[in-house]
């Protein structure tokens, strides 16, 4: 749509601006403030410059949390994106069964995060959980509270359970927008199932898949509640991801300076990735309009 230039539109945006400034900019400035100061308690602060940033950049703790986080996000994406596309391709196109699938698939997305954690914490327990009990009964050694590999598997399966439907729903929406004529043309050309997917479906899903990948990346990068409820970051530090570590540092130990420096670097990484996301997305938007 052709947009007209009108500087008065600013007045319409003003309420949002004030509200978000209040709930985002002020807290963020507090964080910046802490990140460059040190304290001996009693609310007496003095300038510490970039000390905390240097400390955090060199800290073993942050490196390992970042490493775990990166592995987690990579594994999540590697499983959820192909699985989501696969599910979307198998979804019925219309009818009662299609609505039924949509409703059931959306259900996990609407469960409070800590309840998702609770569900899986119970589900995996050896004494009262269906999963844990069954695995034990068929002789597989599984205990997510003691074994870090089992803890990882539990957290990953939980996330796949929780969020694969998001990828599938987005891919499904992309598939729905492909006109029937494309498939008929492919049939006439006797295209194989794979080439229909590769040359018709995949290009048409490109836009939504990009959104799905980046949403999943962002949300897995700041995951907190679900693994915290299931494993509490343990055993040891095995499932302590960035957010869990940050909350431990800021609220548990009240190390304000390092936590603030940590927060800012964390936020900058997210900003950078969002920016890449936004740029690629708007480019695709423009291409589609032409």
């Amino acid at each position: 749509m052709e947009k007209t230039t009108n500087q008065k539109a600013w007045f319409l945006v003003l309420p949002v601006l004030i509200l978000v400034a209040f709930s985002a900019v002020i807290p963020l400035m507090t964080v910046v403030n802490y990140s460059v100061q040190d304290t001996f308690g009693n609310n007496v602060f003095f300038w510490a410059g970039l000390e905390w940033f240097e400390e955090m950049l060199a800290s073993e703790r942050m490196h390992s949390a970042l490493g775990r986080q990166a592995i987690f996000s990579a594994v999540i994406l590697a499983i959820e994106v192909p699985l989501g596309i696969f599910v979307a391709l198998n979804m019925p196109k219309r009818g009662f069964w299609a609505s039924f699938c949509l409703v059931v698939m959306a259900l996990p997305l609407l469960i409070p995060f800590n309840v998702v954690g609770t569900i899986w914490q119970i589900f995996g327990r050896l004494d009262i959980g269906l999963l844990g009990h069954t695995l034990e009964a068929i002789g597989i050694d599984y205990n997510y509270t003691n074994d870090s590999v089992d803890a990882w598997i539990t957290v990953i399966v939980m996330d796949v359970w929780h969020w694969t439907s998001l990828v599938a729903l987005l891919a499904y929406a992309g598939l729905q927008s492909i006109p029937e004529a494309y498939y008929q043309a492919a049939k006439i050309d006797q295209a194989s199932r794979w080439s229909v997917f590769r040359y018709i479906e995949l290009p048409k899903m490109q836009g939504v898949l990009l959104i799905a990948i980046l949403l999943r990346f962002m949300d897995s990068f700041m995951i907190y509640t679900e693994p915290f409820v299931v494993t509490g970051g343990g055993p040891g530090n095995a499932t302590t991801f960035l957010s869990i570590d940050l909350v431990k540092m800021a609220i548990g130990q009240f190390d304000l300076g390092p936590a603030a420096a940590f927060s800012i670097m964390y936020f900058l990484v997210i900003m950078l990735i969002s920016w890449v996301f936004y740029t690629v997305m708007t480019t695709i938007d423009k291409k589609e309009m032409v």
Partner: protein
Amino acid sequence: MSDTAMTTTAARSGSKGIALPRINGSFIVMTLYLLFLMLPIYWLVNMSLKTNQEILGAFSLWPRNLTFDNYLTILTDPSWYMGYVNSLIYVVMNTVISISVALPAAYAFSRYNFMGDKHLFFWLLTNRMAPPAVFALPFFQLYSSIGLFDTHIAVALAHCLFNVPLAVWILEGFMRGVPKEIDETAYIDGYSFPKFFIKIFMPLIASGIGVAAFFCFMFSWVELLLSRTLTSVDAKPIAATMTRTVSASGLDWGVLAAAGVLTIIPGALVIYFVRNYIAKGFALGRV
């Protein structure tokens, strides 16, 4: 574009009535996937209908002695059911605030070019992507210092951090689909901007407002970190009540499961109405 495709599908499915799915590869894949999704939820429901002795004593796939005591405990004990009331209060407040500030802003983004519009739009997105863990402590200090700690409005305002950008993006997506000629015709007919917006424009994007409200409601409902940090007693959400009970009394699994089931219900109730827009909502209005 996909929007129209989806609505036509919905219309067709409505007229066709209930048809049994054919048994083939796709059907088996979907059945397995849906089973995978439903099993953990079934287990929670199953547990909520058992007594604690049965949960811990004998392993059973369905409740042998069906009991609703766990639900009764929650619905009669104020320390439990007030958690639901508190959650509902701040979630509704947040939805109302988010939608009412997002409506004019989304209109501006969908209709006009103005200085810094692209940057502003992007900046809003970064707030949706901001990790709540980064904001937990500063929010706690900010709201404590202005005397709003442990009030519903504090949580409602804090959740605006990610819900306002979400609402703006979703509404902008819907408003782009309304032709600009409608605005122009209304102005020629002598409508003022507020009158046009409320009388003509809002009914046109009613489904968009519904979807945006639904997503604000959901994202505020599922969030725990901020709502737990900002409350202690008076405005404690149900989710936080659950976590504290686990640590305090330890083993009341039946009540815990029942509380979990009750938190799933609001989403499950309205999901049917928004099923065709759910992808659009989760994709920030970009599908």
